[in-house]
């Protein structure tokens, strides 16, 4: 009798335990690690919008903001992996090595690293967006709207991601206006409103009447608004910060991808992937087109957007020449992803040299 009681007690305990484990397994928790503050209205802000989409889909989320890419990143990642998170999104390039290091120690936790290339363990995926497709749209608009034929471009760091953007932008602008020149100022920062504003001012002083940016703050569009020139929002719709200057913005839309991946973890279907999505998959979104743009330009842009989405148009279609006139992509060909990933030369029409 006693034995029976004990046995049934033990088995009910086991049952209870299994039920709890099953309930926990369904209850997937996602964590996000951010490089900046969630209120930067740029890179981190948009990742946080993506996180909120995951919450809206019924999952629990946690985030840590302002995590430096120094030795601290590893500790934050380990703490998140250790405190019951099933999938961790690390949203800056500099988290690449810590992500892979911690992933090795927590094989049951999934790691998703944005903009990196290392997937050293089966539980690490990487993802990035084809922002250069958005820049093809911006280049088309800039080439049409400029009167001085000088377009300014505030760049962050001389890495392929940024060079690719400059090239994609310039190629599109040249297509509608062969006389344009793209002038670059390297700010050597991703987010520094003071430096970015100075860079924009320097470009405006050199005659640029359209300013593009590959840095994250709203300082550049605000400077453009003050100077009465056009600009484009970066990462989020920046129209409200400079209603006259901003013609449109290229938005980073991470939500659908995040929801997808967290759901995959919940269903047990998650597997290692290297994702590079563009306009077609909705990871890159073009904001509303400003009414200052002529109607025919607006309809042209809409069509270009649809063609980029369907793959009918590719941002890098030959013939493409570098600054010295050497052929980079032959006529009728398009650049493959390998070439895009390592792109470190300017195309013809970009002024200056890449800082080395």
């Amino acid at each position, binding site marked *: 009798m006693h034995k029976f009681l004990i046995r049934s007690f033990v088995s009910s305990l086991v049952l209870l335990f299994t039920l709890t484990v099953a309930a926990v397994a369904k209850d997937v928790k996602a964590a996000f690690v951010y490089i900046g503050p969630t209120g930067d209205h740029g890179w981190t802000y948009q990742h946080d919008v993506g996180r909120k989409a995951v919450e809206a889909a019924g999952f629990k989320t946690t985030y840590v903001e302002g995590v430096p*890419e120094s030795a601290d990143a590893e500790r934050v990642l380990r703490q998140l992996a250790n405190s019951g998170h099933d999938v961790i999104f690390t949203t800056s390039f500099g988290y690449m090595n810590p992500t892979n290091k911690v992933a090795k120690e927590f094989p049951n936790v999934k790691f998703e690293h944005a903009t990196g290339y290392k997937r050293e363990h089966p539980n690490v995926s990487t993802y990035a967006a084809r922002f250069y497709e958005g820049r093809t749209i911006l280049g088309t608009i800039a080439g049409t709207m400029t009167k001085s034929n000088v377009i300014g471009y505030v760049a962050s760091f001389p*890495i392929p991601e940024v060079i690719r953007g400059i090239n994609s932008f310039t190629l599109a602008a040249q297509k509608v206006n062969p006389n344009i020149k793209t002038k670059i100022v390297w700010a050597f920062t991703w987010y520094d409103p003071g430096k970015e504003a100075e860079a924009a001012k320097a470009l405006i002083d050199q005659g640029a009447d359209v300013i593009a940016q590959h840095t994250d703050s709203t300082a550049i569009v605000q400077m453009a608004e003050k100077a009465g020139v056009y600009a484009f929002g970066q990462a989020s719709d920046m129209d409200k910060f400079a209603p006259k200057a901003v013609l449109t913005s290229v938005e980073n839309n991470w939500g659908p991808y995040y929801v997808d991946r967290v759901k995959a973890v919940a269903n047990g279907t998650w597997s290692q992937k290297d994702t590079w999505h563009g306009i077609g998959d909705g990871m890159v979104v073009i904001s509303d087109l400003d009414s200052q743009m002529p109607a025919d330009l607006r309809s042209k842009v809409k069509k270009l957007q649809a063609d980029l989405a369907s793959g009918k148009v590719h941002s890098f279609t030959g013939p493409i020449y570098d600054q010295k006139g050497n052929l980079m992509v032959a006529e009728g060909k398009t650049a493959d992803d390998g070439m895009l990933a390592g792109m*470190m030369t300017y195309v013809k029409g970009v002024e200056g040299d890449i800082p080395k």
Partner: protein
Amino acid sequence: MIKIVKRDQPSRAIFFLTPVLAIFLTLVAGGLIFFILGFKPFEALKFFFIVPIADKYGFSELLLKATPLCLIAIGLSFCFKSNNWNIGAEGQLTFGAIVSGGVALLFYEQEGFYILPIVILAGAIGGMLYASIPAILKTYFNTNEILVSLMLVYVSKLILDYLVVGPWSNPEGFNFPETRQFSDSAKLPLLFEGLRIHAGIFLALAAVVISWFVFYKTYLGFQMKVSGFSLKTAKYAGYKGKKMIILVFLISGACAGLAGVGEITGPIGQLHREISPDYGFTAIIVAFLGRLHPVGIIFASLVVAITYLGAETAQIFMQIPKYTGQVFQGMILFFLLASDYLLFFKIKFIGSKK
């Protein structure tokens, strides 16, 4: 009635008690801020100051974080004690890391016991070279060391940017701004399996012992003390001021450079753009919180280190914005400076008579 009376002499007991008072006031004010933000104050403080170090791993992370702070603050105390305002430890850290990282890269994929000592020495020399600039400019050209050392911080970061983006970037790294990973022989050994705490902590402890000896047992320490009280007296006593200024800057730079070595050859293992979350600036708070005393600095570095860890834990478990960590650091310094008032004045309660 409350009356404020000037003290005849600054109180020595109060001198060492005010840091404790400042920490206490910071906790009270911090709790109040949490309360206003809508968090349970005691729970928040628990996640901030206790949970992060409740296990072995957490405690090892505390020591890892405190190591560079302690090392730099010890170096800075040499400068601050003798009236030399070296604000550029962050730059000396960065430049030390650059020189040491460059040497480590020279030994890429090589093994040998001699590599690590060379890498460490290179970092110390790099920090000293960089600190010698404000020192020499101050002694021979009468420039202001605060401005020069501070400006050089930004210069050092630009040099680092240039190197990791350009000539030193990893050839297999798709042009991302980072160098190759150092070989194991160029990295500081870990003290325990599975923890990140590394041999760099011994450098910090050695600095503590040496500085105590220098401050209280040597002629140099005495000179520094006199110069700290009054430069005129020091001159009158016939001390060779220039030599001492350069020496304290070199010591300070070496310590900061070693802190940089500890980061890149310890937990990071390569050079990239962000090797220090402003340790060089935070160490200024540590130095003053520790009253420029070697033992005080050990405690102060632990207290300040925990504000970093606590901010992360509080955000993960309670969704408290991580930047409150910086608010805490600011409050500690503020309350410390404010309570220094008690050094020179005392508050007397006088019974009201009708």
